[in-house]
C-alpha cells in the first residue's frame, strides 16, 4: 500500500508538471506563426518529442533527410497555400491573429497546428467527446465541428487563456485538489466546459452538473471527482447576498 501511494503521488507530480509545461508552451507564442523554441529550459514534452523524432529519423534514414526533418511538422502545415484559401482574423486569448487558411481547417486544427495552442485536444474529431471544447464569444463549443473561417472577427478562449501556473483559474485549482483526472487528455475540455457551466443555468444538484457535463467524455472515469471539483467551485463562488 505504501508503494502504491508513493507511485500514485509521484504520478500526479508528473502530470502536474506536464500540464503546466504544455500550458506555458501555448502561452509563449506572441504572434501567429512563431516556431516553438527548442532552446533554453524548461523544455516541453512536445519539444522533446520533436527533437527525439528528428534524431531517430536521421538514424534510420541517413543524413540526407536531416534537413527536411528538422523543420517542425506544424510549421509545414501552416505554410501550405491551399486552394480556396480564406483570410481570417481571430482574437485568441486576447491576442489578434491574421491567418490565411484552407477553408477545411477546423477551429481546433487552426488552434493546434497554426497557433500552436495545443491545450485543446483532438479526441473523436466528430463533436462527440468534448476534448476540443473552447469558448467562442464566451460560449462553449466543440472546436472540431466548426470551420475556423466561419469565426472571422470572433473571440476565442482556450484553456491556455483562462489561467496560468501560479495563477490558476479556480476550476483548474479545484481539478488539481480533487484529482479530477487520470490520463489528463480530456482535462482541458472538461475545464473549459466547467468554466462555462459556472455562468449557465445549471441546477444545484450533482445530477444537474452531470447533465451539463455530459458532452465531455472521460475514459479514465474521473467523473465523480470532476463533479466534486465543479461543485466546490460553485459553492465557493455563490453570490452571498442575504444572511
Amino acid at each position, binding site marked *: 500500500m505504501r508503494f502504491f501511494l508513493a507511485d500514485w503521488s509521484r504520478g500526479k507530480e508528473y502530470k502536474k508538471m506536464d500540464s503546466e509545461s504544455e500550458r506555458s508552451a501555448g502561452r509563449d507564442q506572441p504572434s501567429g506563426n512563431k516556431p516553438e523554441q527548442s532552446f533554453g529550459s524548461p523544455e516541453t514534452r512536445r519539444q522533446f518529442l520533436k527533437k527525439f523524432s528528428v534524431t531517430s529519423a536521421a538514424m534510420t534514414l541517413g543524413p540526407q533527410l536531416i534537413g527536411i526533418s528538422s523543420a517542425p511538422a506544424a510549421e509545414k502545415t501552416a505554410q501550405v497555400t491551399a486552394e480556396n484559401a480564406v483570410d481570417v482574423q481571430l482574437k485568441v486569448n486576447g491576442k489578434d491573429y491574421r491567418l490565411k487558411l484552407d477553408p*477545411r481547417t477546423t477551429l481546433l486544427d487552426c488552434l493546434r497546428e497554426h497557433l500552436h495552442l495545443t491545450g485543446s485536444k483532438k479526441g473523436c474529431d*466528430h463533436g462527440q467527446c468534448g476534448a476540443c471544447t473552447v469558448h467562442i464569444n464566451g*460560449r462553449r*463549443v*466543440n472546436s472540431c465541428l466548426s470551420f475556423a473561417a466561419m469565426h472571422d472577427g470572433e473571440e476565442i478562449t482556450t484553456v491556455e487563456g483562462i489561467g496560468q501556473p501560479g495563477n490558476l483559474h479556480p476550476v483548474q485549482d479545484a481539478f488539481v485538489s480533487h484529482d479530477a483526472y487520470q490520463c489528463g487528455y480530456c482535462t482541458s475540455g472538461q475545464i473549459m466546459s466547467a468554466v462555462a457551466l459556472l455562468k449557465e443555468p445549471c441546477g444545484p444538484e450533482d445530477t444537474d452538473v452531470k*447533465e451539463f457535463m*455530459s*458532452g465531455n467524455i472521460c475514459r479514465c472515469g474521473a467523473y465523480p471527482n470532476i463533479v466534486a471539483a465543479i461543485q466546490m467551485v460553485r459553492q465557493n463562488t455563490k453570490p452571498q447576498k442575504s444572511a
Partner: protein
Amino acid sequence: MKTFALTRATDPAQAIATASKAKTAQQGAEIRFIGGGTTLIDLMKLNVEQPKTLIDINRLPLDKIEALPDGGLTIGAVVRNSDLAYHPIVRKNYAVLSEALLSGATVQLRNMATTGGNLLQRTRCMYFRETNMPCNKREPGSGCAAITGANRGLAILGTSEHCIATNPSDMNVAMAALEATIHLRGPKGERSVPIADFHLLPGNTPERETVLEPGDLITHVTLPPPVPGSRSLYLKLRDRASYEFALASAAVVITVAGGKITRARIALGGVGTKPWRSNEAENELTNQPATPAVFQKAADAALRGAKPQSQNGFKVELAKRCLVHALKLATQTA
C-alpha cells in the same frame, strides 16, 4: 474531406441566388448553406456530404426570437438551440419545445446548432454514415443494408422497402406537436410550409428528405399562439440518461376541461422516418376523459401501423408506454 469554396453571406438574396445554381438541395447537394455545422461538418468529414461550395449564413439577420401580434412566436433560422430553449416565452408558452431541445445533444452542440439546421438534421443510421456500405439515401439504388443489418435504433413508422432511417431530431417532434410553420425564401419568392408537410416519407426516393428545392433558404419558423389552458411536455426514452438519441419519445400538447380532453396534439420521435404526428392518437383522445384506459387506446392507435424490423420490435411497446406516460404526466393535477 474534399475541398470547397467558402463564402460568407451578408445578404439573403445573394445567398439564395448562389445556392439556386445547385442541381439539388437534397443529399449530395454541391452547394450548401452552413449554420452551426454540427451535422454538415460531421458528414463532410465522413465524405457522406461533399459540397463544392459552402455559404456561411451565420451573419444573416435571421437570429431573432420575437413575439407575434397574434400571440404566436417567430424564430429566426440561425437562432441557436440554447437560446431557443432558454427563451422566456418558449419556457412559458411552449414548454414542450424547450424540453425537447434540452434533451438533445450537449451544451456545446446546442450552443452551435441552429433552428433551421435542426429541421434538416440527418439520420444517425450507421449505414448512411459509412460510405463503404450500401444506402439508398446516400446513394440511390445501392440498397438498404439496415433492413437486414443492425436496425435496433431505426424506424418502425413511415418506413419503405428502400429505407428505414429514423429522423433523429427532438426539436422536430416538438415542432410537429406545436404545428409550427416553416418559412422559406427561394429564387421564386417566399412560401410557407406546415411542418407536417415539410419532411417527406422515404418511399422510393429516400434521398429526398424535405420539400426544399435549390436556393430555398429557411428564414424562420413560426409557432401559433399557445392554446389557453393547455399543457405540454416532451418525454424521451433512451439508452443513456444524457447525450443519446431517442429510442422513443413523445411530444404532447393537451387541453383538459371539466375532466374531458378538449384538444390534443401528439407527435412521436425515435420511431418514425420523419417527425411522427399522430392524428390517430389525437382522435382517440379528443372528447374523452383523461384516463389511463383512454391513453392506452391512443397509444395503440398511434402504433397500429408499426412495421418492426429484426432488432427493433421492442420499440412498438416502448413507444406506447412512452406516450401513455407522457399523457399521464401532462394531465396530472398539480
